[in-house]
């Protein structure tokens, strides 16, 4: 069921929030043994909250725009009273004492937090296999990964365990699982959604985003969580002038990023991308191919910058204040830190911390970190320049469909390549929506990306709504069912 219609009916008293929640809890209990999308489900709390929502409606009080809508939250976003593990052993036992800003907004809008979803440890990965608590599986094919790092949220929405979910997108972590599981995944303009309460991995790049099965639901979810407010000092809303409302696809100039349909992209993904271009043409848009040669710099720059920031952001996990306890028998602080961090972090996290520490070390800083900073601003400038000529850019979300479990985890570089088409968006800080668009011959969903200028978040979502209304988007909810 769509979030939009749940909220609408609950608000009008036509549907009981408790009844809705009961159904979703039932779905979760049926799906979870197969896909392991959740790390924590607060069944009791969710039902209690649903009862409160129903009470409000009975008293004639409007519970808000997401009244009674169950939502899953990626387990790197703080929810008061729930564990916050980031799928890492190092945070085992830690319960957040506060709500992320987005979570407060969701609660105020009447949404019900069902639980916390699985991810690659600290959001580092593209398959959710790097979770310390076991991988999540793709509901379309249990042998395949759901993508990552927000794989739990993608799988939860794709399977129908929840109508909407939150994820975070550092280099495609919302859009990749959305594309692999056949749902919408939205990455807003950097700074437009408060990051307060999102556990930092790469703080200058990552954003909180959402999952849904319809563009209209995405619009609703985004309208609730947007408006970066006080606690996020990197609020960008004043940097760009406010956009005008979306005039429709007719006459819009759309650029198809040539580099993303070249070498390395699976033929079926390329085909879907051209079909997407065709759909846009049908809607009246003018689609041309456009080239940004420097996109090849994006992936190395991204991995350098994010690893550097990660080495800093993850320094705080030392077992002294929270999480995995610090050993008391260490002979000095360094030994205690080594022990906690050696045992608490998984291999991918350690790899990135080491790469990042190296890139920030004196003597290497100029050669690595500063070069990556320069590459980022070059890519950003070039993308914004192209976006002066085109209102939208398009391309595949990922070069492939969902790989099998274990297929890429042994080779980090092949895993990193899954992010090839998503990372430029993060480096440029622009909004992008992954739209489910067809399936491969093996029945796996394919996602395409619609990108636009900073703060044109509404345009991206509205354009998708228009395509959806034309019947040109294959909705995932039709297909993913409990086997």
């Amino acid at each position, binding site marked *: 069921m769509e979030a939009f219609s749940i909220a609408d009916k609950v608000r009008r008293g036509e549907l009981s929030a408790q009844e809705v929640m009961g159904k979703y809890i039932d779905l979760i209990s049926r799906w979870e043994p197969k896909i392991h999308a959740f790390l924590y489900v607060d069944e009791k709390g969710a039902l209690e909250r649903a009862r409160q929502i129903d009470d409000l409606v009975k008293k004639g009080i409007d519970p808000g725009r997401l009244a009674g809508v169950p939502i899953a939250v990626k387990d*790197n*976003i*703080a929810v008061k009273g729930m564990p*916050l593990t*980031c799928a890492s052993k190092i*945070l085992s036992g*830690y319960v*957040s*004492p*506060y709500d*992320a800003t987005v979570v407060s907004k969701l609660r105020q809008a009447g949404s019900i937090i069902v639980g916390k979803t699985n991810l690659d440890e600290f959001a580092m990965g593209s398959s959710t296999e790097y979770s310390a608590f076991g991988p999540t599986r793709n509901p379309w094919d249990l042998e395949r990964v759901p993508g990552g790092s927000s794989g739990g949220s993608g799988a939860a929405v794709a399977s129908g365990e929840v109508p909407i979910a939150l994820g975070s997108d550092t280099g495609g972590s919302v859009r990749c699982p959305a594309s692999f599981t056949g749902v919408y995944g939205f990455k807003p303009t950097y700074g437009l959604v408060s*990051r*307060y*309460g*999102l*556990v*930092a991995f790469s*703080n*200058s790049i990552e954003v909180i985003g959402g999952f849904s099965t319809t563009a209209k639901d995405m619009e609703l979810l985004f309208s609730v969580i947007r408006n970066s407010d*006080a*606690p*996020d*000092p*990197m609020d960008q809303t004043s940097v760009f002038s406010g956009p005008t409302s979306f005039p429709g696809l007719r006459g819009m100039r759309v650029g198809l990023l040539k580099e993303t349909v070249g070498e390395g992209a699976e033929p079926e993904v390329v085909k879907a991308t051209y079909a997407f271009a065709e759909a846009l043409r049908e809607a009246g848009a003018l689609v041309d191919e456009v080239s940004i040669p420097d996109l090849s710099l994006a992936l190395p720059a991204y991995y350098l910058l994010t690893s*550097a*920031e990660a*080495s*800093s952001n993850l*320094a*705080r996990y*030392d077992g*002294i*204040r*929270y999480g995995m306890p610090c050993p008391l028998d260490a002979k*000095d*602080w*360094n030994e205690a*830190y080594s022990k906690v961090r050696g045992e608490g972090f998984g291999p991918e996290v350690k790899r990135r911390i080491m790469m990042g*520490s190296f890139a*920030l*070390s*004196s003597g290497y*800083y*100029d050669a690595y*970190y*500063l070069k990556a900073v320069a590459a980022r601003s070059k890519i950003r400038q070039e993308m914004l320049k192209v976006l002066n000529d085109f209102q939208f850019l398009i391309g595949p979300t990922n070069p492939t469909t969902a790989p099998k479990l274990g297929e890429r985890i042994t080779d980090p570089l092949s895993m990193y390549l899954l992010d090839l088409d998503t990372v430029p968006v993060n480096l440029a800080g622009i909004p992008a929506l992954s739209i489910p668009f067809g399936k491969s011959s093996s029945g796996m969903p394919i996602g395409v990306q619609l990108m636009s200028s900073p703060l044109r978040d509404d345009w991206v979502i509205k354009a998708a709504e228009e395509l959806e209304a034309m019947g040109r988007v294959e909705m995932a909810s039709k297909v993913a069912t409990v086997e």
Partner: protein
Amino acid sequence: MIGLEVHAQLTSLKSKLFCSCSADYRRLPPNTSVCPVCLGLPGSLPRLNGRALEEVLKIALALHSDPAHETVFYRKHYFYPDMAKNFQISQYDRGGGVTVAKGGWLDLTLGQFVKRVKIRRVQLEEDVAKIVYPSSLLSSEYVMVDYNRAGVALCEMVTEPDLSSPREARLFIEKYASILDHLGVTDTSLEGSLRVDANISIDGGERVELKNINSPKDVEKALNYEVQRQIMIVERGGKIEMQTRHWDELNRVTVAPRFKEEEEDYRYFPESDLPPIRIEQDFVESLRAALPELPDERAERFVRQYGLTPYQASVLVSQKRLADFFEDTVRRGLNAADSADWLMNEVLGDLADAKKELTDLFPLIDDVVRVVGLYEKQQITGKIAKRQLKQLIISGRPLEEVPTPVRDESVITSIVSEVIAENPRAYEKAKRDPKAMNYLVGQVMKKTRARADAKVIIDILKKKIAEDERP
């Protein structure tokens, strides 16, 4: 060569640098003025307290330092339990970093001449938590961490290595503290509000950094200890290695780290959770225009207005409270020169003897004025005045009454006669040896409880002797 890094807490601020927790943590139970931000909990983000920038700019302007047009925060990384994030949000003046201000100077009065000490930079950063050692730095088996202090706004000021002795270092810090007090940004009398790291190198040796020094006096002590230590090593044919040592306040020694340190790499890089801050010229000028009177100007005024010597003026303004106290006594009618004399020659020493601070003196100001005033009007002797002031400062309680002097010469003469009668041998001795007269004077003083003037007693005694010697 000595260079200093002085950390001053901006105690005028109500809240911490990046969150709204109270910065006034001193009387609070441990770990009660904390929140997700200053505890570095996962997901929390800093938000700049804009007043902190204003306060640091005032310090920069007072030091003739040049404010940046745009300043950025950097992260400084090292693993230690006093930092909840294992990095400190600070600033950096290399690799593209720009601190709040750079350059500047502070003039030190050293006897007859003035020494200009150059300032390298002035910057803003967060304080770290307090590590509480159950016993001394060396013998503690465990430590406790109190995060109440974590995130309090600090101004770090770094000098060039322009200081040439431990004493100069102490004088520099005293002067800087006085500037901070005059600006009203730091109450330097609060414990731990001013903390110093000192870098010292003696001829040919490597630089040694001394950390964790909490007062100007300790800076001098720690540096003196360190100079002696380094000289001894060199005399024995050893070499001074680059090192960070900690000042152990309790044992009054500098302590080497327990394990050999690697050279620290702080991996500085920009703090992207905080946007660069533009510092508008107009804003800087409005702050400059509103700066209060600073110690140098105040000293000049003291010379001009009160006729003090430049030396007196410089001593008085070296502590804001001393200068304030001085002006208060003048306002209450004391002669400025007398007040300056008494404060500098007696009161400061009495305070030191009583282990008290200038703050303890303010409630007693009326008594201080009364005692010095009586002396001025020659109603009491200098000796009585000194004794009264000492008693006042030690007890901390107002005087019940100031003993009035014995001026009636006939009364003194009869007491002198009494003393002569009681000490015939001493009197005989005094006849031959004028120096032996002191004993008799002392006895008279004792009987008058020092209320008589020694000169008058001597005159009377001499008269007596002359009378007795007359054939």
